[in-house]
């Protein structure tokens, strides 16, 4: 009985458009949860289902994941400008991947929880911009 009840309620409630009858987690709730998740969790979450993947690949989620890993001093400019530039250059998910891949095996940092400093962030931004440039062909992005 319980599943049918939920299904009915989801049919009736337009705000719950992201809910699969049998999954039981609202997309907005999922979003709030994943905003607090670390990269590993995000990766796992993206494998669950199409809906989960969509949420897990949202740039805001990855922006939050990045922001947890770097300090205020690591980024020289304001949040908004950073956001617009990074999104233009390929997004936070890519940036995070660059940072994680590049600085995963550094001898100094022993855990994934180690913070990224200004140099790491700068370097990764450079690499991100280069990758974006390489994708540009004359006549269209």
């Amino acid at each position: 009985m319980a599943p049918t009840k939920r299904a009915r309620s989801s049919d009736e409630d337009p705000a719950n458009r992201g809910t699969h009858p049998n999954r039981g987690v609202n997309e907005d709730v999922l979003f709030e949860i994943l905003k607090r998740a670390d990269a590993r969790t995000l990766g796992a979450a993206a494998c669950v289902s199409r809906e989960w993947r969509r949420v897990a690949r949202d740039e805001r989620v990855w922006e939050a994941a990045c922001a947890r890993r770097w300090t205020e001093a690591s980024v020289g400019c304001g949040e908004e400008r950073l956001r617009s530039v990074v999104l233009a250059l390929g997004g936070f998910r890519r940036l995070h991947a660059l940072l994680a891949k590049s600085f995963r095996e550094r001898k100094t940092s022993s855990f994934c929880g180690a913070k990224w400093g200004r140099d790491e962030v700068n370097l990764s931004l450079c690499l991100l911009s280069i990758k974006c440039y390489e994708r540009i062909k004359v006549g269209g992005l």
Partner: protein
Amino acid sequence: MKRENQYLYPHPDPSAAGSSSSTGGKTKVCWEDDSLPEAGMDELLAVLGYKVKSSDMAEVAQKLEQLEEVMGSVREDGLSHLASETVHYNPSDISNWIENMLSEFVPPSFDSNLQPLPPTSIDSFIPQVGPVDFPVMLDQPKLSPIFGGGDSSSSLPDYDLKAIPGNRIIYPQNQQQQQLEELSSSANKRLKPTAPPTEAPLTTSTRPVVLVDSQEAGVRLVHTLMACADAIQQSNLKVAETLINQIGMLAASQAGAMRKVATYFAEALARRIFNCYPQESINPSFTDLLLMHFYETCPYLKFAHFTANQAILEAFSNKKKVHVIDFSMNQGMQWPALMQALALRPGGPPAFRLTGIGPPSPDNKDRLREVGLRLAQLAETIHVDFEFRGFVANSLADLDASMLELKPSETESVAVNSVFELHRLLARPGAVEKVLTVIKEIKPEIVTVVEQEANHNGPVFLDRFTESLHYYSTMFDSLEGSTNSQDKVMSEVYLGRQICDVVACEGLDRVERHETLEQWRARFGSAGFESVHIGSNAFKQARMLLDLFSGGDGYRVEENNGCLMLGWHTRPLIATSAWRIGSSQ
């Protein structure tokens, strides 16, 4: 002893010291040897007038060593009987001749002095004639190990091109090395003035090289390369040709970086000997492709760009309008990173103008314009005010400050950037000075220069050859660590072209005229520039960059009086420096 002397050690004319072909000629005339090698005779020795069966080479070598030791250890008068009483028959047949010589010495009294010969294990067995006393090598300054500490498998611990006497190679080092060295060096001293020149890197053409320990073959390979270059220096093209074949075979016995370097150098030498340098066949799209792979595989270009950008960024701090003049536009890979950094700097991005200078392209494709469009697209997405202008010029020396449409310096700050371009100007006298003058007219805030750290522009060919052999060996070593094999191959081709240019070309064709940081410092200093120290930010970023590359352990960043150098292990390979107009100007 005179007559015997001539046959014992073919003594060249004093005026042609080291020239083996003239020696060969002399001996040939005396002996009426046919210049065609007989069946089974070693080719190289035949050229020089000796007849040795290839199958006998090992024995002959051993016996010669014995003979040398014995002669070295006799007392003062011990040799005199050789001069007066001994009759020598047919010394060109070395094998028998040595037998005779050895029998002249009273065996028992010399037993104690004779070093025990090594066991006849294949490994320690090098068919090599005589001590490797290479007259030219002795004049060379000490050269750093060519197997620069890269792969431990191919590195020779005490390798020093100058100091290798014959014994050291032939006998494994754990066997009474001291005594052997002493003996051979004393023997060498006595025999040096009449020692056979340039026979050093001989190998048997018929004996399979597989039998030889590859470390030894590596040493012989280097010696052969040097011998060939020396022969070219002396204009002995015949000998050089023969040696080229040997190089080919020796190179095939090597593995990894050494083989590739040797192959490229051999090709360049061959081009020089036969005067066939490919002139116009260079396809610019292919060059671009090679450059991109080189860019991805190893950190040199990225290091150059990132350190130069850091210097430019610091010079442009707080400026509202900036203008960069790039002498080395290529694909424009340096500028996305700078644009991003400008976009994210605390005060907001300035207006960014870029003037790119490039060579004319033979296929009429407007490369500069394409690059400009791509950069403009990027700039637009990150909201940086961007303007691009491209200039096509055959040479930087054709530029004039007036062409660049400079704004007055109060409104716009200028930076000049040159990555691996300035050395090309050295082919034409006066060109560099003109360009430096033009730069001064531009009145830049900063001039960033990245150049190879090597002297490949000396007047003597052999010196250039030696320098470049070491330089490119180190570079190829550093490439070995990369995982993507296609990238690696392309990078090697890219470097191979430079090798070809340094070795095979002359005059205006030779554009890869690298010079060291010290030389550039002197040039900039005397032109009225003063050095700007590159800050620690750049240093840290560079260090971090290197960690990203596989084989990152081998790369080293060094600071040298305000300039940054990137090297592989102990050898610096490229140097970034920054300049501004001296305050006295």
